C-alpha cells in the first residue's frame, strides 16, 4: 500500500502536459473514445434538455418555447398525483428492498447449511430461473394465469379449494402492490441470494470450527456468526439501493398493470405516470419537471447513503 501511494505521488509529479500525453497515449484514448461518445449522446446530450422543465414546451418551435418559471413544478406538486405517485414509488421500492434482502439472506444461509451438493445445486438452479425472463413474461404469467379474473385462474382455483368465492382481481386495487412486490421477489430472490452466498463463502472457516469445538449448535452458529458477519454486506447493499428509491420500477410495473386505470391508486409510480403523461397528452414540460425532481432527490439520496456507507465501512463506499 505504501509503495502504491508513493508511486501515485510520483506519477502526479511527472504529469505530462495535455498534448504530450495525447501524443504518447493517444491509442488508449482512441480506444476509450467510442464508449465516451455513446455515453455523451445518451447521457450528457439530454442534460441541457432539462431546461424544458421551466418552459411551456412547444413541439413545433421547440428552441423558442417561452419560459414559465416554476409553473410546471407547481402543476405537478399541487395535483393529487404528486403525493400519490411519490408515496406509491417509495412504498413499493421500500418493500422490494426489505423483503428481497430478508428472503435472499435466509435462502443464502439455508443453501450454505444444506450439505448435499446435489440438492443444493437443484434448489439454487430452480430459484435462479425467474431472473432470466423478461418483465413482459412475468406480467403475462401474473395477469392472465395466476391472477386472472375468471374462475379458472390459479388464485381463484386456490380460493375455491379453501371454500372462498373467486375474486375479480382486475377490480381490486389493494391486491396489486402485493402482487407487484411478490413478482419482484419471485424474480430476484435467487439472484440476490447468490450475492450473499458469495460473501458467506468468504468467511473464515476456522471461526466456525472453533465454535463447533466450543459446542455451539448450528442455530447458534447462524445466529452469532453468520448473521453478524453478513451484516456489513447487508447494510451496504441496502444503503446503495437507497439512491434509486424515487425511481420507479417502470418496465416491471407497467408490464403487470399496463393502462388499467382502476388499479392506479396503489400501483401508479412516478415513472408510469410520466410515461402515460408523455404518451397520452405529450406533457413534456411537466414530465421533465418531474424527472428533474426525481434526479435531484435521487442525487441527494445517493450522496447521503454513500456518506453513510463510508462512515459505516470505509471500503464499501462507491466513491
Amino acid at each position, binding site marked *: 500500500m505504501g509503495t502504491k501511494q508513493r508511486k501515485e505521488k510520483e506519477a502526479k509529479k511527472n504529469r505530462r502536459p495535455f498534448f504530450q500525453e495525447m501524443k504518447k497515449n493517444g491509442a488508449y484514448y482512441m480506444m476509450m473514445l467510442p464508449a465516451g461518445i455513446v455515453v455523451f449522446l445518451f447521457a450528457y446530450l439530454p442534460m441541457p434538455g432539462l431546461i424544458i422543465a421551466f418552459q411551456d414546451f412547444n413541439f413545433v418551435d421547440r428552441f423558442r418555447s417561452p419560459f414559465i418559471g416554476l409553473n410546471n413544478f407547481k402543476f405537478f406538486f399541487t395535483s393529487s398525483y404528486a403525493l400519490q405517485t411519490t408515496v406509491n414509488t417509495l412504498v413499493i421500492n421500500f418493500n422490494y428492498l426489505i423483503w428481497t434482502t430478508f428472503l435472499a439472506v435466509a435462502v443464502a444461509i439455508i443453501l450454505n447449511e444444506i450439505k448435499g451438493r446435489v440438492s443444493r445445486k437443484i434448489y439454487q438452479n430452480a430459484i435462479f430461473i425467474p431472473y432470466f425472463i423478461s418483465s413482459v413474461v412475468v406480467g403475462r404469467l401474473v395477469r392472465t394465469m395466476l391472477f386472472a379474473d375468471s374462475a379458472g385462474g390459479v388464485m*381463484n382455483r386456490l380460493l375455491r379449494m379453501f371454500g372462498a368465492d373467486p375474486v375479480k382481481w382486475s377490480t381490486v386495487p389493494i391486491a396489486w402492490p402485493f402482487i407487484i412486490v411478490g413478482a419482484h421477489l419471485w424474480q430476484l430472490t435467487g439472484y440476490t441470494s447468490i450475492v450473499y452466498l458469495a460473501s458467506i463463502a468468504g468467511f473464515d472457516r476456522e471461526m466456525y470450527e472453533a465454535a463447533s469445538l466450543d459446542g455451539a449448535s448450528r442455530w447458534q452458529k447462524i445466529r452469532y456468526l453468520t448473521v453478524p458477519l453478513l451484516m456489513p454486506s447487508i447494510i451496504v447493499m441496502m444503503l446503495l439501493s437507497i439512491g434509486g428509491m424515487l425511481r420507479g420500477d417502470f418496465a416491471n410495473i407497467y408490464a403487470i398493470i399496463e393502462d388499467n386505470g382502476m388499479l392506479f391508486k396503489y400501483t401508479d409510480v412516478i415513472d408510469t405516470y410520466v410515461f402515460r403523461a408523455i404518451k397520452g397528452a405529450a406533457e413534456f414540460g411537466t414530465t421533465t419537471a418531474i424527472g428533474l425532481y426525481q434526479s435531484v432527490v435521487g442525487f441527494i439520496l445517493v450522496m447521503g447513503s454513500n456518506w453513510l456507507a463510508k462512515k459505516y465501512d470505509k471500503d464499501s463506499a462507491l466513491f
Partner: protein
Amino acid sequence: MRTKKQGFIGDLLMHLGMIFLSFICLYPFVLSFMVSISTEESIVKNGFKMLPDGFTLTAYRTVFADGSIYTGYLITILVTLIGTLLSLLLTAMAAYGMANNKVQYRNAFALYLYIPSVFSAGLVPWYLVCTQILHLQNTLWALILPSLVSPFNVFLMRNYFKTIPSSLLEAAEIDGCGVMKTAFVVVLPLSKPIIATISLFVGLGYWNNWANALYFIDERRLYPLQYMLYRIESLMRFIRENGAMANMEVPTQTFQMATLFVTIGPILLLYPFVQKYFVKGIMVGAVKG
C-alpha cells in the same frame, strides 16, 4: 443424541422450505407450458390445470402460421447479436484504456462515465434526444444504441484487466507489439472468463428488453419478440383479420401461453449450460459493486 435429532429436524425444515421455494419458482413455467399444449375448450371449462385434459399443438401451429413470429425472432436475434458484440467491443476498449496506469486521464474518464448514474436528465430529455436529434424511432438502432455502454460493466472489466501482470504487457511492448496488438493478442485471450460473463449478461439484457420498443417502435416489422408478447391482444386481432386464419377461431389463452413459451424457449434451453457463468458473474460483481 438430542442434538442429532435437532439437527435432523433442522435439515428437514430447511429442505422443505427450499422445496417449497423451488416449487413456487418453477410452477408458473410448468403450468404455462401445460396450458400451451391444452385444448382451448378444456381451459375455458376447467381453468388452468396442471394436467391437461386434451393434448394439442393447435396453439403453436397458430403462432407459427403467422409470419410475424419469424420477423420477431429475426429482430430479437439481430439486436441481441449486434448489441452484444458492439457493447462488448466498446466496453473492453474503454476498460483497457482505463486499466493502464500510464494513461493520465483514466480517472477523469471513469468519473465521466460515472456521473450519469448519479444524476441523469430523466426520461423526457432522453426521449427527445433519441427521437428529435438522433432520429432513432422505428429503426433497429433504437433497440441497440441506448443500452450499449453500461459503466458498471466497464468498471468490472477494468478491474479484471488490472489483475493481468504488467510485466506481460511490457514484454509484449519490447517485442514490438503496438497498443492494439497487445490488447488483442496478449490481453484478450487472458480475459475469456470476464468476456463470457459480461457478454451473457448483456445478451440476456438485449433479449429481454422491450421498453425501448415501447418507446420507439410503431412498425410491426420491427417488433422484437418480447414486445410482440406485450402487444399480444392486438396481435391476436391482427391474425384474425389478416393471414390464413381468417375463418378460424383463434385460441386465446393457449395462444398467449404458446407465444410466451416461444419467446422464452431459447433461454430455457440455454439455461443449464450458461447459469454457472451468471453465478460467477454475480460473485465477481459482489466483490466490488
